[in-house]
Structures are given as structure tokens and as C-alpha cells.
């Protein structure tokens, strides 16, 4: 088995030295995110207190948690100095302005980072939970579609087409404003516990799960259909039932073939989870929008938040690529092409 030293991500193929850089930058992003979450996160707080762990990190640090760890002042000072130069050089001032802009952006990113990190937690949380729950629904959906009877496979098809054929934002609004789902969720006692995600976030998870299940089911269906028919025949010929044959022979192969498509869906959901902002979920996108309307620095904040999404997407794609490599077997997976 050879490890392929490339990453097929949403932004193309990353190789060699670029891969090292991407890994370093991505790793730094995640270290920073995890550190920020560790220092201030109400969900983690709730978990800590629920299992009786002393609140080691917070107590003192809690004050000023929204403060950036790297001061913005030096960047701003450089930017201001360059601005001064610009004023002095007259006709060539645009050059100095161009040079000043990255420093201004860095200063801005430093000061808005803590809020975006908080939002990123919710973005990641929404995406991971919805992907996982979606997978639980998608596998039976796909199996039913391929191997089910005429009625069940049509039901599965109808579900997939209904969900894939309507806008995600419409689905989100349907569940949040249309169904009394928010009220129902809010009335469950457990929701009042400190640290539980807000009602809107739960509605978002429900909507994303239902949506993602349909897309994942399509990827898995295609993968199942690419498993050679002789595999199930052979399973049945040794006395396995159809269900056992699907479980022990078809799914282990089909799910491996589904990983590239699954990565695709993962990357999509990271970005489309930003729609949750429109039902008041304080995810990364909503933080950015709020900062934008507070500061009027729309260009800067959307560049910064765009880079954050890009970082999440690329690291996810790299991670999934490694997973695919790890799970691939001779003849099953990407390392050796199927003949």
C-alpha cells in the first residue's frame, strides 16, 4: 500500500512542500481554536461541572476571556506609520496604502479573533453533530434505495428528492418559523441547563441533519452500486442472509468508496452551516455579520471570516484524505485503482 502524498481538497491538489505549509498553518489554526475553546466555552464548562471536575482553567482566567492573546497595537502602529508615510509621499501614496492594508487587516483580525473563535465552536459543533446524525440516517436510506422493495426504495427516493430539491434555507425557516419545533425543544427541561446549546442551534441541527442525510445517502447509494454484484451473490452462496451480506460484505466496501463524496458533503456543510445565522444561531458567520455592522469594516471582516472558513475546510479535507488512506485496503479504496 502506498501513501499518496497529495491532498484533494476543495481548492485543488496540495503536494509536497505546500502540504507541509498547509499542515502547519492548519495545525496552528486548530491549536488556537482549541485553546480559545478550552479557556472559554460554556458547553465545556457544563461537561466539566457535570462530571465533578474542578474548574481548573477558568476561575481567574474568565475575566477578560474575550481579550485577544496577541496585542493588536503593534500591527496598528505599523499601519498608522505607513499611513503617515502615505500622506508625505503625495502621488505615490497608494503604494504605502497598499502596504499598510495587510497590517490593518492583521490588527483587525487580532481584535476580532476571540469572537470568531467562539462562533467557530458553534460552526464546528453544528457541522460535526449534523454530519454524524445524518450518516446514521443516510446508511439505511441508501441501503433501502438500492436493496429495498418497490415501496421502501421509492419512499427513500422521495425523501432524497424532496430534500435535495428544496433550498436549505427554506428548510431551516420551515423548521424554525413554521413548525412549533422551537417551542417543543424549549419546553424540554434539559434545555434550561446551563451550557446546553440554544434552542435555535438545536433546530439548526435537526434541519442540517435531515438535509445532510439526503445528500450523504446519495453519495452512499452511488458507492453501494459500485460494489460488484458478485460480492453479494458470494455472500449469499455461503449461507448469509441478504441483510447479513449487505452488512458484512457490501457496506464495508461501499462505505470506503463513499469517503470522497462524504468529504465533499462535510466541506459543504461547514460552509452552509452559516445559514444558521439567519435563525439567530451565533455561529462564526453571525459573529462576523455582527462585527461588520458594529464597525462598518465589512471588507475586512468578510476577508477574515472567509479565511477562517477556508482554514476549516482545508484542514477537514486533509483529515478526511488521511482517513481515506488509512481505511483503504489493497483493491478497495483509492490507493489501488479498481479494475
Amino acid at each position, binding site marked *: 500500500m502506498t501513501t499518496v502524498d497529495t491532498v484533494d481538497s476543495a481548492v485543488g491538489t496540495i503536494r509536497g512542500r505546500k502540504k507541509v505549509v498547509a499542515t502547519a498553518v492548519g495545525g496552528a489554526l486548530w491549536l488556537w481554536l482549541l485553546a480559545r475553546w478550552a479557556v472559554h466555552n460554556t458547553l465545556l464548562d457544563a461537561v466539566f461541572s457535570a462530571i465533578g471536575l474542578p474548574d481548573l482553567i477558568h476561575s481567574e482566567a474568565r475575566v477578560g476571556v474575550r481579550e485577544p492573546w496577541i496585542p493588536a497595537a503593534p500591527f496598528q502602529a505599523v499601519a498608522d506609520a505607513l499611513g503617515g508615510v502615505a500622506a508625505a509621499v503625495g502621488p505615490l501614496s497608494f503604494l504605502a496604502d497598499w502596504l499598510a492594508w495587510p497590517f490593518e487587516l492583521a490588527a483587525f483580525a487580532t481584535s476580532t479573533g476571540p469572537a470568531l473563535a467562539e462562533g467557530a465552536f458553534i460552526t464546528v459543533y453544528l457541522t460535526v453533530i449534523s454530519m454524524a446524525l445524518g450518516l446514521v440516517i443516510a446508511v439505511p436510506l441508501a441501503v433501502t434505495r438500492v436493496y429495498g422493495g418497490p415501496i421502501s426504495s421509492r419512499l427513500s427516493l422521495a425523501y432524497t428528492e424532496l430534500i435535495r430539491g428544496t433550498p436549505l434555507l427554506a428548510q431551516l425557516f420551515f423548521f424554525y418559523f413554521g413548525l412549533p419545533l422551537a417551542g417543543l425543544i424549549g419546553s424540554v427541561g434539559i434545555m434550561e441547563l446551563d451550557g446546553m446549546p440554544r434552542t435555535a442551534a438545536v433546530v439548526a441541527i435537526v434541519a442540517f441533519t435531515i438535509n445532510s442525510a439526503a445528500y450523504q445517502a446519495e453519495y452512499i447509494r452511488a458507492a453501494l452500486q459500485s460494489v460488484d454484484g458478485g460480492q453479494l451473490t458470494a455472500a449469499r*452462496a455461503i449461507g*448469509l442472509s441478504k441483510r447479513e451480506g449487505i452488512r458484512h460484505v457490501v457496506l464495508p466496501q461501499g462505505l*470506503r468508496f463513499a469517503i470522497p463524496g462524504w468529504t465533499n458533503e462535510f466541506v459543504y456543510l461547514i460552509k452552509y452551516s452559516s445559514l444558521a445565522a439567519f435563525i439567530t444561531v451565533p455561529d462564526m458567520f453571525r459573529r462576523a455579520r455582527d462585527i461588520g455592522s458594529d464597525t462598518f469594516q465589512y471588507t475586512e471582516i468578510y476577508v477574515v471570516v472567509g479565511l477562517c472558513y477556508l482554514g476549516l475546510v482545508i484542514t477537514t479535507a486533509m483529515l478526511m484524505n488521511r482517513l481515506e488512506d488509512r481505511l483503504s485496503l489493497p*483493491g478497495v479504496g483509492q490507493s489501488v485503482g479498481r479494475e
Partner: protein
Amino acid sequence: MSLLRVDSVDKSYGDEPVLHDVSFAMDRQNVEVIVGPSGSGKSTLLRCVNRLTEIDGGEIFLDDEEIHTVDENELRRRVGMVFQDFNLFAHLTARGNITLGLREVLGLSKEEANAKADDYLDRVGLADQAESYPAELSGGQQQRVGIARALAMDPELILFDEPTSALDPELIGEVLTVMEDLADGGMTMLCVTHEMGFARSAASTITFLDDGEIVERGPPEQLFEDPEHDRTRTFLGELTDLHQ
């Protein structure tokens, strides 16, 4: 008492008749070789015996039980099958291919299943390939694993569906050797094959099937030396020439 008795079996795919009034019986420890031109219904007949294909008319008895009165999974445990395209489970090692049925169908423990699998791999000369995946094996090795997989279930009868047809010529011998050993060991085998050397040396009976009907059936000497029908003589003559 016959182990397998096929009685007036009819089968058609839609309007296309495939088998018509096929009847024969075979005893334990016999090796029955079915020959016939392509499209004559040989493979279909085989697949009817373990119910991968359902017959339209007639009856098939295994050990005097009509096979449609037996649970199909139970029937297939008792009737092994070896495929033309091997159909090894691509995600499992050679050992895993054998243990899957042992564990999930026969309910053996992991240790018992592994020991038994290794024993059967040894019998087909592949003890050193237990950890190899199908894609890492040659066609001949894959087919020998396929035979070991069928054998390990302790079947009463094994069906061979053109087991050497997908193999390069130099790999056919190793598979035929394993099959000849099985025949010598008293395994009951129903084989569709074009290997006339194997038919001559190992078969108890040869059945010539053409157009979904049995044209002629008898011991190898009779069919090769003194067939009743010209069709049989022509077909076997051509096959023997081809495979020399």
C-alpha cells in the same frame, strides 16, 4: 439413495426458455461434469441447485428433501459454490474470506474459525497467504481461496461454475490439482467446466447439455469413445482439440 436429484426442471428468463425437462441424479462422492455450448443453460442449472435462481417447474431434492422446503440460507450452507470470477470478498484477507461464513453462519468462535481457515488454506497450498487481500493474489490463488471458502463450510455438495474459465492458461493447473485432490478425497462435486482432461480423469459421469436439454449422459469413457449422438461427438471432439 441419491444425494442430489433433479426432476423435470424447467426454467425460462421471460420468454426465453433456458432449461427444459432436465432430470438427473447423482450419488454421494460422485463427480458430475456438465458440458455444453455457451448459452446451453449449464450455469443456470447450477444456480438452481442452490436457489440463486428459482426454477419455474419440476423439483430438486437434496438428500431426499425438496430444496424449496429447506430454508434457503440453510440450503446454501449445505451446498457450496465456486464462481468463475472467484468473487472473493475484496475487503477481507484470504483468511477473512473463509472465517466470515464460519463465524456468521456456523457460529464458530474467532479462534476456532481462524484455526479452521488456516487449515483449509493449507489444504489448498496457501498457508503463507492467509493475510493477503484478494487484489494481492494471482487468479489461481484467488480461486484456490474460493475453493477453501466453500470447503470450510463442510458442504455436502460443491457446485463449480466454470472455475478455470477466467484464468490465464498457466494458472489453470494449480486449480485443477486442488479439484482433483477433492474428487479423490470423496467430495461430491457438480462441475460446469470445459477442462476435458479433468472430466476424463475425475468425472464419474458427464452430462452433455445443449439448448437447455440433456442430450446425453454417461461415464467419461462412453461419452468420449462411443457417444450415442453425433452432436456429443462433435462437441466433445472440438473441446478436446481446443484444450490440448
